[in-house]
């Protein structure tokens, strides 16, 4: 056994030597090039994952992840979030009446007022969301039911929208603008917020509607036809409003910079949510004064003004599919809204890594010696 390996070595030496010297003379044309690549002898780094090498990595991961996790967790916990469900399933709820189809007449919009109390003041900027659940914005038929070139202001798509918009493509033989199921089901509850002063008077909390959509969406992806934001009535001549809408698209807002396809509420709605339970940014409440918190602790009222669906004859109807509507007030940190998951996950992974590091250390000490001892005789 020993001896044969001995020979192999010796021969190796001779062989490589012979190849080096004799190669030049003999048959140069067919002789393979002796490059490192062709001979598969490229210089290479040959790392080996052993307990010894991986150990430090695990400890390092643990040491990095745990502080990050703690940081994330603390940040997430510091975020103030208030959520209120206004679906009106419970007959005691102020919104119960409005959500019943038959009880309201179509001329006067139904308004419901929900009082609530903030136990803590919200110090920084507050973001107001509406949340829907069990609403499948990610349904395939729904997701594709839009025409991006129409929304980008393409004139031909305005008059003949994409086939994907069916069955929300035409109404009364006129093309629908904006076409498709997404636009058609635009969320149309109007939320207003009142602060109830200690003296009992209500004061309107100013809600800002600019800056809720992605900048790129508002400025590039969505454009009114012809890039004209002013004479929208004329621009949308010959189109029909989506069937579920009460107003045509050019009457979504009075502000010409927020009207038509570049209406931010519309844009936000058009970005389909990933999961059936989602929230969408509705309004911003900006901090005005460093001295006064954005939302003081105290009593508030949420006014929900329902705009009825012409065909459905109801509020924004989610109850039929067991949906829920919520209003969420939340502050935001650098890591976004309240989400303990990331922090917990980081802490868990960090600790697991640390633990694995210890396990590996034990294994390395206990079993690694067996291998190591082998190389040192005696």
């Amino acid at each position, binding site marked *: *056994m*020993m001896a*044969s*390996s001995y*020979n*192999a*070595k*010796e*021969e*190796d030496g*001779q062989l*490589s030597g012979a190849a080096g010297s004799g*190669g030049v*003379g*003999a048959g140069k044309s*067919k*002789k393979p*090039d002796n490059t490192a690549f*062709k001979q598969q*002898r*490229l*210089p*290479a*780094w*040959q790392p*080996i994952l*052993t307990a010894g090498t991986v150990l430090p990595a695990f400890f390092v*991961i643990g040491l990095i*992840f745990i502080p*990050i996790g703690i940081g994330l967790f603390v940040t997430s916990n510091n975020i103030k979030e208030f959520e209120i469900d206004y679906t009106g399933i419970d007959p005691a709820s102020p919104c119960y009446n409005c959500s019943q189809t038959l009880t309201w007449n179509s001329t006067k919009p139904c308004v419901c007022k929900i009082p609530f109390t903030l136990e803590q003041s919200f110090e920084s900027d507050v*973001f107001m969301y509406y949340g829907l659940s069990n609403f*499948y914005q990610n349904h*395939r*038929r*729904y*997701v594709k039911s839009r025409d991006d070139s129409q929304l*980008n202001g393409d004139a031909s798509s305005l008059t003949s929208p994409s086939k994907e918009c*069916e069955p929300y493509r035409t109404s009364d033989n006129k093309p629908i603008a904006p076409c498709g*199921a997404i636009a058609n*089901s635009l969320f149309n509850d109007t939320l207003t917020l009142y602060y109830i002063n200690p003296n009992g008077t209500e004061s309107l909390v100013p809600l800002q509607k600019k800056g*809720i959509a992605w900048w*790129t*969406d508002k400025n590039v*992806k969505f454009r009114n036809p012809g890039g004209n934001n002013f004479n929208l009535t004329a621009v949308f001549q010959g189109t029909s409003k989506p069937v579920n809408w009460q107003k045509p698209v050019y009457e979504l807002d009075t502000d010409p910079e927020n009207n038509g396809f570049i209406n931010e509420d519309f844009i936000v709605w058009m*970005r389909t*949510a*990933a*999961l*059936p*339970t989602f929230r969408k940014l509705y309004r911003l409440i900006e901090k005005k004064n460093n001295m006064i918190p954005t939302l003081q602790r105290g009593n508030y009222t949420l006014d929900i003004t329902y705009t009825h669906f012409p065909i459905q004859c109801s509020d924004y*109807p989610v109850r039929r*599919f067991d949906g829920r509507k919520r209003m969420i007030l*939340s502050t935001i940190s*650098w*890591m*976004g809204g309240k989400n303990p998951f*990331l922090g917990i996950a980081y802490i868990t992974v960090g600790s697991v890594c640390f633990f694995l590091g210890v396990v*590996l250390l034990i294994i390395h000490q206990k079993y690694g010696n067996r291998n190591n001892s082998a*190389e040192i*005789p005696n």
Partner: protein
Amino acid sequence: MDCSLLRSLINRYCAGEENWVDSRTIYIGHREPPSGTDAYIPQRYPDNRIVSSKYTFWNFVPKNLFEQFRRIANFYFLIIFLVQLIIDTPTSPITSGLPLFFVITVTAVKQGYEDWLRHKADNAVNQCPVHIIQHGKVVRKQSRKLRVGDIVLVKEDETFPCDLIFLSSSREDGTCFVTTASLDGESSHKTYYAVQDTKAFRTEQEVDTINATIECEQPQSDLYKYVGRINIYQDRDEPTARPLGSENLLLRGATLKNTEHIFAVVIYTGMETKMALNYQSKSQKRSAVEKSMNTYLIVYLCILISKAMINTVMKYVWQSDPNRDEPFYNHKTDSERQRNTLLKVITDFLAFMVLFNYIIPVSMYVTVEMQKFLGSYFITWDDDMFDSELGEGALVNTSDLNEELGQIEYVFTDKTGTLTENNMEFIECCVDGHVYVPDAICNGQILTGTVGMDMIDSSPGAGGKEREELFFRALCLCHTVQVKEEESVDGIKKGLQPCGKSSSVYISSSPDEVALVEGMKRLGFTYLRLKDNHMEILNRDDDIERFELMEVLSFDSVRRRMSVIVKSSTGEYYLFCKGADSSIFPRVIKGKVDQVRARVEHNAVEGLRTLCVAYKTLAQDEYESVCKQINTAKLALHDRDKKLAEAFDVIERDLILLGATAVEDRLQDKAADTIESLHKAGMKVWVLTGDKMETAAATCYACKLFHRNTQILELTTKRTEEQSLHDVLFDLSKTVLRHCGSLTRDTVSGLSHDVPDYGLIIDGATLSSVMKPTEEGSSGNYKEIFLEICRNCSAVLCCRMAPLQKAQIVKMIKTSKEHPITLAIGDGANDVSMILEAHVGIGIMGKEGRQAARNSDYAIPKFKHLKKMLLVHGHYYYIRISELVQYFFYKNVCFIFPQFLYQFFCGFSQQPLYDTAYLTLYNISFTSLPILLYSLIEQHVNMDILKRDPSLYRDIAKNSLLRWRVFIYWTLLGVFDAVVFFFGAYFLFDNTTFTSNGQMFGNWTFGTLVFTVLVFTVTLKLALDTQYWTWINHFVIWGSLLFYIIFSLLWGGIIWPFLNYQRMYYVFMQMLSSGPAWLGIILLITISLIPDMLKKVICRQLWPTSAERIQNALKHSKRDNVSEFSPHSNLKTSKSKSSEHRNPQPTRSGRLSKKMMCTHWGGNDYCTFNSFFSFSDSPHNSSASYSDRGSGLETSV
């Protein structure tokens, strides 16, 4: 020739219609034969157009598409594409249409171009001018216009345009020289003979007057077989009939050499030429890896179908609530509503299939093919397998079997030319018990031979002297060697004699004959040449003796002998016969049989090839009857071989034994070392040879197939004569199994020296009786027992094998119940059958032509190169391709499983998770290059170590890296990773925002996040698996990640005008602008990679494979002494090592011993450490063992 016989022959053939079609009749020069001859049915022959192209301009598109869609991958893609076109599916038809279109187009363009080249080549060949004789004049014509029966004129260095019968030559003796390099690779000059009766027609006018017909068989593909007959009508009515054989047949593709011009008649044209018939493709061999790959594909197809079924069922369960099926915000169109339910279900099912279709890694086929194709270049490039003597390196004829080289369990090797050099050297001859050794004679002395040899002094009695000279003359005459004068040499020189007076070279297809003739020359009898059918010999007294060559009874492997009949100048007829002892002795009636036999056996044991020589004198009438017999047989169109053999059998009888010769065939360089390595690597080596048992056994000992302590089991005719086959078999199996019972199989097949390992010797006759089915049906039983015995023998020697038997053996092992992977290696035409039969066929570019190399899957210059081929290349390719296969399944599970999970959150609506571009490009560009590069250059252990430690080969035996366990592990890992990606992203997105401006992300951001994590995880997983990081790996791995990022930035960076959706616009950038997304990505990647890393580390620590042990050991040694084994320093160190080893005992340092251990680790059983310790503790001990083994290295008998 008497005509009645011919008539009767013809009548016999005419009698049966079906017989008639078996042959064709050709009128030379389209000249009608004189009336009165038998009518024949005119046949239509194809023109001389060679069509190697596959397509024509018109059928290219349909035929090429059909060819391409016959491949499973393309077909699958096509089906998916069609489904996408027909029904409304979640992903656009582009996702599968584009890659399909790309692959199809590229392949079509490539094939079209190749075919165009073929057309061009065909045209060049078909239009090249040939000279034909018309009305006594030479006319130029295009080659394709040649017709059967035309007489053509071929000039020197021209290539024959079709298969021709040689009519006459510019050379006086009616011969011509031909090289067949483009046919069988043999560049030596071969002599062909013109038809006897026409060779006098020298000019075109004369040739045009030939009035003859040729009857011959219909074309067949065997290059070396031809039977025909020419009938020459001279002035008389009665035709002269002459046999035609392959020596008259000039094949298309061969080139005329050393002959000014020849005339020949066209017999086979165009696609009926032997060359064209030989271009039929060989049957496809598939590797074991490919087989398991296909099995896995079926598993994945089942997974795919079940996924689609689950989702379809779930969809309908979920949709049973109409508010879910069609909520107010999401109405169906009328046509959708009205659709038939069954149709809807089917559509949905197909849509899910399309959505998940990427789980079948179609791109794997493309990648595997590229890997095999590119990877095979490393074999051809390998410098170690380059033979400077031949000037050639290894050849790869098929790249489909690269990885199979790492799976070999049985090696079947030929002996002559494979294990041995096939470079014959005349050693001695023995005449009546007198031994002549040429060198000794040359020096004027006679060697006093081995003790106990019956040896008489150099001047035997007068009778002895006569016999001696007769013997020498016999050897000088009884051969088919040609002499080539020096001035005309431009072929390969064979056996240039160093000390001869004349500068001529002997050429023969058999090296033995050259060796013999040369040996005779050294003993004083020089064969000069064959001139005018007279053989000239220069005898000891420098007198020229002339013998007229009457007949040659040529050699064949069944008779194993050849004879010549010559007429001496004194008018005596002699028959000289030489052949294997077994075929000569039974035919001998006189002579000193016992002495010669003793000498032959003695020589055989020494490993020399022996031939016996005998003669008889023929009287005139005897000769004539012999002549008649032979001619009758030769004229037969059917069963000519059989009839000839019968005739020869009758003629070669009652011989007088003259003596025997011994020729040495030296072992090839490092044959023993290679065989030992193969043994250590766990392979069983079988030697299959046509040689006699003693010779073969001696070679086997010399090349270490058998060791001294190998217990030899014999299963030969000698034994079966004493006992019945049945008893012998049972005896042997008992012997073998007794040991087997107490030991595990591993140790039996291993090399542990205390266990006697078995070697079996079986001969062809016994083998055929073992294989022969008997009436009682007990043959299966014999076969089973035989296989059981073989399984327990580490080495088997099969001697006296016919070529077909070699293939039978291979087939028997191949189809035995374990289905082992077999390899056959050989150099000669007789090995072709087994090369084709075995899983992997390797040809040696030997001295017996290129037949084997042409038919093999791989061709190597020398047997020793097999070691590197299997241990290094095979090992690497197996490791690489198995990782490639597993990784492809893994990465597609990772890719598709999140999409499956997403269906549960989007109402089973077939909404894709990823954007179309990502779906399309994932397998094509984001994750394709790193694995391809990995599968080309990964090396887990340095190749020197693989070579030094063959036992590492056992690590990967039995397809170990593609077992179900491993496959399931990879799949589960993929599922785990997919779950991590999906639910990680899910919890990140769960009803909250993770941007600092409060804005929300949509479903495309969700998908992009998952996809980003996916691409990074999958690539980094490969990075973790990579153990050989060259700059290319770095470039490709980091490059493809960078490419993904750049692509995503670009893809979302602008509004693409040609797209009808802009869903990806700024999605990627928005995601990257959020801190938590970064943190989430890092977290998810880490979580996905940890389990695999942990598994690797723990397995390595607790249950290391031998390769891992080597790596560990290397690492430790490296720590002690830096980069001892790095590839760069390799050359240098190995040189210095070898110098150190010259005087090992005193200088052996601790450092060195450590190195030794590294190379030795992972032997068959890991207790070798102990032996090593003792080695380093007490050097003298080990040196003793060294010398012990060292002695074993030399010829042991």
